[in-house]
């Protein structure tokens, strides 16, 4: 049975696309067939972050409008054969994403995949509401920063009212993914702590991704963080988060940048 996950946040630039790619790859690395769907019509970027930008022929809008079949639009990852991408289109016409069309695509994907990760655009407009519409689980990506927390709170409200699950009177499973966390600054009292954000948003914690150079490095080379360097701190955080998403119980840690001596010697060579 396929599980549909929406990666959402309200605010832009907090790490939705990075997290979608990393969680998607981490789930695929477990051998589960995963597709990451870009809902950011007009400003697609998931293809770039996943290193598939030169292989996009058809996109989700082509599938919805009947110009392409779903298998033609799906791009298989070159590194992981269980990982797929369904790109967004670059059209400026926002209405090209229709509710019926998205529902049809989601139903087709559910028949072929174990995991469907929906990368939501920023904001609370059509693209964002359609991305969350069919979700079973929501991953709310939040930075330890006031505007991000406020927007996440708003998104949680939408998840509880504007989704299929909510309309059926069911409970939407929501998880917090705290990204760009700096344990040193939080300890110093200059950044909201994990517990502060958890107390304010009151949804369970899926993972803590530390602020790290490795995230930019991964997007530079077009690889999900967990594939670029699976031993980097953010990769470890995403791998653990994916395990929790899959229902495993994993103790919560904030992966640090520290590496053992051997890790330092060999880790650099790998990068």
């Amino acid at each position, binding site marked *: 049975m396929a599980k549909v996950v929406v990666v959402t946040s309200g605010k832009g630039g907090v790490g939705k696309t990075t997290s979608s790619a990393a969680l998607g790859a981490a789930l695929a690395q477990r051998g589960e067939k995963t597709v990451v769907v870009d809902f950011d019509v007009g400003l697609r970027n998931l293809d770039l972050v996943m290193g598939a930008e030169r292989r996009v022929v058809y996109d989700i809008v082509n599938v919805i409008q009947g110009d392409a079949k779903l298998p033609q639009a799906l791009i298989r990852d070159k590194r992981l054969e269980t990982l797929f991408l369904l790109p967004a289109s670059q059209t400026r016409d926002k209405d090209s994403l229709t509710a019926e069309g998205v529902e049809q695509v989601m139903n087709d994907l559910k028949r072929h995949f174990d995991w469907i990760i929906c990368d939501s655009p920023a904001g609370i407009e059509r693209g964002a509401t359609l991305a969350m519409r069919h979700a079973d689980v929501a991953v709310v990506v939040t930075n330890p920063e006031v505007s991000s927390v406020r927007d996440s709170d708003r998104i949680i409200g939408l998840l509880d009212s504007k989704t299929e699950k909510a309309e059926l009177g069911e409970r939407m499973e929501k998880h917090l993914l705290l990204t760009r966390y700096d344990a040193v600054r939080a300890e110093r*009292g200059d950044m909201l*702590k994990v517990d502060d954000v958890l107390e304010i948003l009151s949804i369970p914690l899926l993972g803590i991704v530390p602020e790290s150079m490795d995230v930019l490095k991964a997007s530079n080379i077009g690889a999900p963080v967990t594939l670029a360097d699976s031993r980097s701190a953010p990769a470890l955080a995403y791998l653990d988060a994916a395990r929790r998403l899959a229902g495993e119980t994993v103790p919560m840690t904030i992966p640090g940048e520290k590496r053992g001596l051997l890790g330092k010697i060999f880790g650099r060579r790998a990068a």
Partner: protein
Amino acid sequence: MSIFSLFRKQNSAPTARERLQVLLAHERASVGQSDLVAILREEILAVIAKHVEIDDEKVSVKMERGEHVTTLEVDIEIPVTVTVRAA
């Protein structure tokens, strides 16, 4: 405020936390339904406009959202020469 706080460096995270808690308490109550304060503002102005000509420039509406109460301050200048409309 104790004497010790003078020597302690003020951290910004607790301020962020408090501001968020106050803000979200209000937003959770108002989002979805219409904002009560906005309704009050509209209706108060409408009632006054029924009787006197209000110059939009001379109306000042201030709101202060506190942890437990919200205050709405409506300040309207009514000129002495105003012609009172028949009700």
